């Protein structure tokens, strides 16, 4: 049986309670971190999830990793609902969905050698019990992550590696389990620009050679460029625009996407362009604005945007955006 989707997210919501009802407020308040996200990830597909801090993209990742339990909605992994499963089943799923974290300086235990770090997932899952086989898998994971010759790295410690190498170790630690899906949460934002492409190209190769599906979370549309198949732009817990990489980058429909694109620097002083700089920051997700969530910051907001909350509207078969300007 082959499923078309590696991962299917249906109307996923994750709320956190913000304070209890007290003397002055009779109602509980909630942080609407993820507020109704629908997304399908095909096998071998790379979807970029873009948004500013506080838009809920990291909470979405943790919920998909089953590290946070969804408040509402469903997560389907290869056709099977995994939203609320037992701890044992969760462990089995974790073999298939792995994560790469933002800060390679923090996400490795400084007291472990690289060999210990990459072997650990195998031990946790009781895989490759034979010592020789285990070592082979670790070496292969390291080489696949671009650390060659792998033997040179086995006995080193994280502090002896550069930022890019550390991020490769994190990726090797995920690859060793042979996952089907990789969630990369800002994997390059802490790295120098000069080596970011090193990690992005590595992820692109893995998709090609291993058929891994990737959700690439970033605040910077510029870094994903050619690498993503589709781009989903998130704002205040919802996807406001989704489409193929080309559609979103070349013909953005949502004013938020347009603004995000306009502030990406162009490395050519002769092409200085008009930037749409949004004032303020993402509002807090406790008291959501009425109507369209983006209207308080939107440079093109109309009167109707205050009242009516737009759903995703079809632009093309693959391109959708949640903006009332598209209704006309």
């Amino acid at each position, binding site marked *: 049986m082959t499923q078309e989707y590696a991962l299917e997210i249906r109307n996923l919501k994750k709320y956190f309670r913000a304070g209890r009802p007290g003397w002055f407020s009779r109602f509980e308040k909630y942080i609407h971190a993820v507020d109704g996200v629908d997304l399908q990830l095909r096998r071998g597909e790379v979807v970029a999830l873009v948004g500013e801090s506080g838009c809920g993209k990291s909470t979405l990742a943790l919920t998909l990793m089953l590290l946070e339990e969804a408040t509402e909605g469903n997560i389907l992994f290869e056709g099977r609902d995994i939203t609320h499963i037992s701890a044992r089943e969760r462990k089995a799923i974790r073999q298939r969905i792995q*994560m790469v974290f933002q800060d390679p300086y923090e996400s*490795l*235990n400084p007291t472990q050698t690289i060999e210990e770090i990459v072997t650990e997932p195998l031990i946790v899952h009781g895989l490759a019990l034979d010592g020789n086989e285990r070592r082979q898998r670790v070496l292969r994971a390291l080489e696949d992550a671009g650390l060659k010759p792998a033997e040179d790295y086995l006995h080193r410690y994280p502090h002896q590696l550069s930022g890019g190498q550390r991020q490769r170790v994190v990726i090797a*630690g995920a690859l060793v389990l042979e996952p089907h899906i990789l969630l990369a949460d800002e994997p390059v934002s802490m790295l120098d620009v000069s080596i970011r492409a*090193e990690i992005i190209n590595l992820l692109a190769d893995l998709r090609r050679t291993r058929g891994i599906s990737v959700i690439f979370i970033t605040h910077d549309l510029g870094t994903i460029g050619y690498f993503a198949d589709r781009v989903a732009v998130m704002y205040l817990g919802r996807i406001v625009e989704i489409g193929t990489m080309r559609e979103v980058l070349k013909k953005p429909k949502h004013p938020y996407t347009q603004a995000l694109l306009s502030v990406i620097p162009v490395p050519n002083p002769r092409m200085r362009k008009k930037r749409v700089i949004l004032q303020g920051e993402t509002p807090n997700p406790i008291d959501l604005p009425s109507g369209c969530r983006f209207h308080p910051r939107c440079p093109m907001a109309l009167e109707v945007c205050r009242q009516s909350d737009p759903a995703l509207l079809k632009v093309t078969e693959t391109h959708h955006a949640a903006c009332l300007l598209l209704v006309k």
Partner: protein
Amino acid sequence: MAVQELELKPAVPASPLTGFWKMFRENRMAVAGLVMLLVIVFAAVFADVIAPYNPRSYEGIQSGDIYNPPSATHWFGTDDAGKDVFSSFIFGARNSLIVGFFAAFISIFIGGTFGVLAGFYGGRIENFLMRFTDLMLVIPDLPLIVIFVALTKPSLWNIILVIGLLGWTTTARIVRSQTLAVKSRKFVLRARAIGAGNGHIILHHILPLVMPILVVNAILVISLAILSESTLAFLGLSDPLAISWGQMLNFAFGRGAMSVGAWWALVAPGFGIVWVVLALTLLGNGLEQVLNPRLEAHHLMPGRLPVWGGEAESYPATAVRKSRRRKDAAMVLDVRNVSVAYVNGNSQVKAVQNVSFQLYEGELIGLVGESGCGKTTLMLALLRLLPAAGQIVNGQILFDGRDLTSLSEAEISDIRWKDISIVFQGAMNALNPVRTVGDQIKEAIVKHNPAFPQKRLETRVIELLGLVGIPAAYKDHFPHQYSGGMRQRAMIAMALSCNPKILIADEPTTALDVMIQAQILDLLDELRAQLGLAIIFVTHDLGVVAEMCDSVLVMYGGVTAEYADVDTIYNSPRHPYTQELLKAFPDLSRPERKLAFIPGHPPKLDALPPGCRFAPRCSQAFERCVSEMPRLYELKAGHVASCHLAEGKSR
């Protein structure tokens, strides 16, 4: 290929353990404590061999032997029963240490378990365990122990048990707070994402990082246990047949040693207690320094004078860049051949070598390079804020007709902040959390300008906040009520409080979102136009500065790679490093293009390659690059590059 050979071989992997031993051996306090402790442990273990007499036997003792002063046959004299005090001292060491070690083991085990479990699980478990710990903490130990021991048969093991069971509370609290700190680190989350259970995480990720604190704490608990035992024995609550130092004190005190002037019977056990406690304290403090290197202060000590004078190289005079904005713009900063070295003992690191640049009023210069290229060191040198081990070894920094390198500390501190101010990377986290932002800005104004009229302070704060786009109402808010971007703006407002001529912005937008980054860049651009401010913008991202810079200085491995006006840097770069940096920047107008990156990483400044510093990573390197360091070649007026390929390419 010659270039490949330059690829530095990875150093022999140093395990934390070998590193630990090396640092331990170098720590005099720890070594002294350990030696002192080993001496007494050795004596205790081999007591039967070392002690000249058996303290339990009365054989050969005559009535005249009572309270004899120290002599050749009895080094520490004799006691009330005519027995040799030295032998009792040696055997007493054995019991005192046994109690100390075993009681501490029990305490550490209980305290460690409580602390880790409470810290790791939190919630109800933590509540229960820590409230229990608090309860134990407020019960006065000594009376409880006295009651406890009095109720049970006085034996050495009862004493151990009682001291051990009562002495774990501090350990539990310390371990809990360390566990909390470790638990929130990202590698624990990563272990969870791998699928690891709680047991695995505690064993492999929490314990190894809690262990150093536990070890240091254990040492102190041992000495406390020895003291407790002495107290109990002195009160007569220990096994009368087990000789310990406390017991010796008890007997000597109770049987008239003081009245007959037999000081030796009291001094010997007292000396033993002081010796062991001192040894353990030294060892504990030493270990703490070794395990937590931040406590060590020596890297902040001024280094000795450098051997390296810095090979001064004359900067091509014609290469002095003209202002790009206005012909008559005044030069506000002229940095000439500045070199900076870090000196530690006899070794030194050349962090910056012969860097020159010019800054005109109202201009923005981008200082670009990867992490570890000496950018921040150069900026700190400009302000003379280098850590004590850092020195400007040659060059001049001309500001306002004065050479900043030759000013006295008082003179430079007058210029710092008032004329040249700086905003650091992550500076937004440097605001004091318990004072309003407005107050902190006021303080910055008054500190550097004590004569500032009190009446105008309020309006000045509002004016400054307005400059950086923060509404006046926010002046009475606390930093935590600000978002990250607003805090960074507030820091810029503070840096502007004395109307500086130059603002140094050291990666002010790293770790901020693209939109906030754009807001801050926009703000800096406006300030420059509005106030005629000259800005030095430090970044690893060439793309960011393209939008607003007038000129760019690209640094690599502590030297100037290329320096020119912005148009030249982006449209006809000559140094391969500049070219590669530009290629690494994503160009959204061509999203299908595969992104390039520079393989490898910048050289460590203490292991610089002999030739061109970029040669090991350079795709265009040839033999000469490996052996000879290129000098700065002038390509046209105001454009220099340190690359052999640029030789003879000038006009």
